[in-house]
């Protein structure tokens, strides 16, 4: 489309287009040829300024796309296409759903929340429900497990193992040092169990010392020393 008259000045429609751009804050969308001409031409500047002044009290609220500038939001900036708005809403909804799944879902009964430095999984001692229902639930973590309790009192005939630490019913801290004596080269398996009998930690070693640095929730724990063939020892510790 030619925006210029035969005398090389802007046509009436080009002047009107410039004024539309001023009213709709869309000067950046004016064709470069028009802008360049206006920057150099006094007469066209006056035409535009006078027309603008005549229309300065008129409100230009584009409910429909401008025939040349397209869709313009009320602020004068180009509006975001509908498809992007729908996509944005969808992504937001997805985000909220993800957050809901992460933080507001009910915890699993077998939820594990003890972390150890070793590879194996750590489970919550005692009653699998989280300690949130008062002292009664917390006390459950310290109740004895009869089947393991009996093993604690048992005397083991094995003469290859003598336990140095921890002592029976010892209160343990951040790290637990397990120490015993046995024949060198003899591989043993150390296991830590909750008072519900669930294995909390397990390690194979040929040494006579093992330092456990994992995090244990307050409660009663049993620990076992086993060889490949037999149970060597069962001990009991308290984490407060």
């Amino acid at each position: 489309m030619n925006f210029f008259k035969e005398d090389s000045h802007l046509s009436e429609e080009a002047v009107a287009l410039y004024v539309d751009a001023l009213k709709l804050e869309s000067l950046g969308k004016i064709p470069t040829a028009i802008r360049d001409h206006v920057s150099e031409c006094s007469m066209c500047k006056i035409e535009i300024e006078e027309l603008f002044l005549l229309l300065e009290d008129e409100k230009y609220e584009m409910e429909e796309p401008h025939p040349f500038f397209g869709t313009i939001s009320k602020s004068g900036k180009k509006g975001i296409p509908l498809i992007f708005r729908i996509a944005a809403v969808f992504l937001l909804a997805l985000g909220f759903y993800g957050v809901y799944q992460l933080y507001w879902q009910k915890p699993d009964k077998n939820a594990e929340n003890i972390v150890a430095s070793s590879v194996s999984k750590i489970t919550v001692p005692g009653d699998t429900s989280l300690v949130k229902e008062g002292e009664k639930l917390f006390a459950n973590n310290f109740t004895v497990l009869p089947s393991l309790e009996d093993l604690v009192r048992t005397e083991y005939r094995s003469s290859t193992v003598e336990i140095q630490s921890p002592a029976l019913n010892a209160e343990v801290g951040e790290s637990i040092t397990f120490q015993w004596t046995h024949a060198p080269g003899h591989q043993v398996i150390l296991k830590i169990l909750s008072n519900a009998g669930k294995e909390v930690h397990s390690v194979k070693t040929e040494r006579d010392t093992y330092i456990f640095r994992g995090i244990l929730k307050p409660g009663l724990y049993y620990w076992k020393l086993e060889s490949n063939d037999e149970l060597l020892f069962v001990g009991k510790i308290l984490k407060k």
Partner: protein
Amino acid sequence: MGVSVGFAGAFNRHDDKLNESADLRTLTQEFAGSAFARLLKWRVILLGENRLDERLLAERPDALMAKYQEIIKIIVKKYIATKMFHASDFEDIVQMVNEDILKKIGTIQKQYNGKALLKTYFSAIVRNSCLKIYQKQCREMKMLSLEEEDSTEEETVTNHLEIEYDLKRIERILGYYAKKQGRVLLCAKLCFQIPIERKDILHCFSSCSEEDITMLLDQFGFHQERRLLKQVYHIITPILNKYEGKNNTEDAVRRWTEDRREEIVRLLNAAPHCSTYDKETLKILFEMYSSI
């Protein structure tokens, strides 16, 4: 499409009524109160106002004229406020504008390309029509001397608001210069001996070296005793040539600056606002613009 066909029936039924009215003033009154106008409102919602206006221009220019009577009246009133026309001539001027536009409606239909909003384009035509009527009046009649006792009172009351308004106008006017806006502003400040700032230099020469910026700020960055303009152009011309890759003389730069200054004065004094800016008051306006 079905909706358009439905409305076409309404258009046609109104034809007889329209044909009865020779006078557009009567037509406007009938139009405003008619079922036709109510039907048009619904069509606006469906088609959009500009598209509806375009269809009226193509199919029912008389209906478009009736719809745009308000635009004509507003523009004529504005010209009356500038004393281009006398208030008592309002009805006659409106009628003359209507007749002038109706005479060339065929040309308007051919020339309008649908790029600008039709109401803006129509306003441009009304403006030109008013100017033509005014020029004809000036040639044929003596201008009556106009009462001025009220205007002084108006100036006192609205002065402060007008300055704020004119500051916005200066910003718009500078925008007309597009890529040369920085040059216009810098040269205007130098010409008016207004202290320049770093941002003024960079707006004009985006790649200006620190050395040149420092030199310009040393020379023009603060108020000075009145310096000869010749000295100003002597300093600024080589800098302009350096960054624009040109070989302008100091005289050429001075003439260009003065032309821009006069152009801005004309723009500020453009109808219908008709301010009375001159070189001195423009300087004051630029000083205020620089301080915001």
